């Protein structure tokens, strides 16, 4: 599907004033967004921002309190079956059955998805191969490493050949190697035209994988757009970050300064003033490009969010 067709095609997900309350707490507080076909959307936010609740509403695991939500033009809860047969979910927690082995876990899940026995078998074998876990087919889940479990969970979500893949914090708690393998898998799926919704609180993950980012905080979407655009629109290009500074150096006019906790941040649109500053500072300073994390912290403050 080329860009023009993608622009004309109806949106896959539409949310308007979508709200979910738990008692008095508004976990999702009136969000509006659309997901176009052939996109990867990153939902970015701290713990408790409402990302998981939002995802759960999309795959009909929880009812909305008010507002509108359609997925593939259908209504979650009402058309649960039709919607969920076209999507796959990778959960935040490991909810594979600990006592079963890898192949059985996938096989059982394939049956849930309505594949008949022989198809489920074949599909399981194919996916284990793709996940490079064929030699672990007969290992119990409890004997697998965290990275293998996570790959298996991605594989499980692909059993029904979904058009939409929902990943809830897919790389939380994994080592860098495994994270890169998971990212490579996700990019490959993107190339096959699978729409991906990703929640994460790793900014680099969102920046690397997403076409578009929705920044969430306390149930609201506070910013959205392409990662690079967001950075350019809201921040200077360069940041110098230094901790435990005793006296503040003299600053030129084009450097903006921010002090949070024991750390000083200096922002500038060009590099030279910061480089000059860098040479003056006695401590280990870090001169880098501004990233999504800075944007995020600019909008949500640097204090703890609880």
């Amino acid at each position, binding site marked *: 599907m080329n860009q023009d067709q993608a622009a004309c095609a109806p949106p896959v997900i539409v949310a308007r004033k979508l709200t979910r309350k738990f008692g008095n707490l508004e976990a999702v507080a009136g969000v509006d967004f659309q997901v176009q076909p052939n996109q990867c959307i990153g939902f970015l936010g701290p713990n408790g921002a409402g990302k998981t609740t939002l995802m759960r509403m999309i795959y009909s695991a929880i009812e909305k309190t008010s507002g509108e939500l359609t997925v593939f033009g259908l209504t979650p809860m009402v058309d649960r079956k039709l919607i969920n047969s076209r999507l796959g979910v990778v959960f935040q927690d490991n909810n594979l059955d600990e006592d079963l082995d890898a192949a059985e876990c996938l096989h059982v899940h394939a049956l849930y998805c309505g594949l008949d026995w022989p198809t489920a078998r074949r599909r399981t074998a194919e996916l284990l191969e793709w996940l490079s876990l064929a030699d672990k087919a007969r290992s119990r889940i409890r004997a697998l490493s965290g990275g293998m479990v996570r790959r298996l969970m991605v594989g499980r979500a692909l059993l029904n050949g979904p058009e939409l893949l929902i990943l809830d914090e897919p790389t939380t708690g994994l080592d860098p190697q495994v994270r890169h393998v998971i990212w*490579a898998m996700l990019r*490959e799926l993107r190339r096959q035209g699978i729409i991906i919704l990703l929640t994460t609180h790793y900014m680099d993950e969102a920046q690397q994988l997403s076409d578009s980012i929705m920044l969430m905080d306390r149930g609201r979407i506070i910013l959205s757009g392409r990662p690079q655009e967001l950075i350019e629109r809201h921040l200077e290009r360069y940041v110098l970050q230094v901790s435990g500074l005793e006296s503040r150096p003299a600053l030129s006019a084009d450097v903006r300064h921010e002090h949070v906790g024991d750390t000083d941040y200096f922002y500038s649109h060009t590099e030279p003033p910061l480089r000059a500053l860098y040479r003056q500072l006695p401590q280990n300073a870090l001169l880098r490009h501004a990233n999504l994390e800075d944007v995020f912290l600019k909008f949500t403050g640097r204090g703890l969010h609880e």
Partner: protein
Amino acid sequence: MTERERGRHEELIEQELARAAQAAQPAAEPVLGVRPPQLGYFRTQTRLRTGWFWSLYGVWYRHVRVYTKTLLANAAPPVFEPLFFFAAIALGLGSYMPNASFDGLPYATFVASGLVVASAMFTSVFETTFGTFVRLVYQKTYDAMLGTHLALNQIFIGELLFTATKGAVFSSIVLGVTAAFGVRPTAWCVLVPVVGAATAYLFGAIGLIVTSYVRMINNFSFFTSGIITPLFFFSGTFFPVRGHNTVLTVFAGLLPLTPAIELSRALYKGEFTRVTLAYLAIFCIYIVICHVVSLRRMRKRLLS
């Protein structure tokens, strides 16, 4: 499935087939060394037309696999418990009343006919209270199921069918072992596993209803010690509950275990009266009510 839903399915299937035909484009270059499996291929008519069967079967099969992986640890206690009761009470206590007739049966047979059903009750109650709670809160098993197109009812019907299977197996085991110790079953006793399965289904549903209200796993002991144990003792397992006086007979008859025991006892006696029919009716009504309520309650709990 409603008419509207079926129409939608047909429509969807047509779309899927058209899409599958279109999507026969070459696969992307492999990144992980292996060519990725073709996606979008499995939403074919088979899955949407016969999917409900395989989904339900999948839930049942999942429980069976997990249960049988650690069979000895899971199955040994509930198999031996009723047999201890049988040894102590039917054989031990019963030996002091060799010629007594309980409801027209020798005492050992009387007790055995109750225990075949009670064993089914115990196994299913524990499965859908502690077991379901662990799956719900700790293992998040149902979350995984919610991510698929399994209907919410299917999740718990599958679970109840699994408890029914266990009930049938357990009552057969008790039937077999007590027969080895001299209890004479009639030919009708081939139906005992059916009564066992129905009992397990009923108590499985009751367990689900309780689980839907429980927030802490410790709270189950109120239910198991406060309700299930008294039911076991006062529903006619060890002494006849009919005939003391009318109020007691009616009260005992309305306890959910009594009809099941009376039915199994009728099979052991091989005689069926109008009273048996009344018990059968009560039993069926209980099953239907508990089935409906448990599905509704668990649906609410799962989506909360």
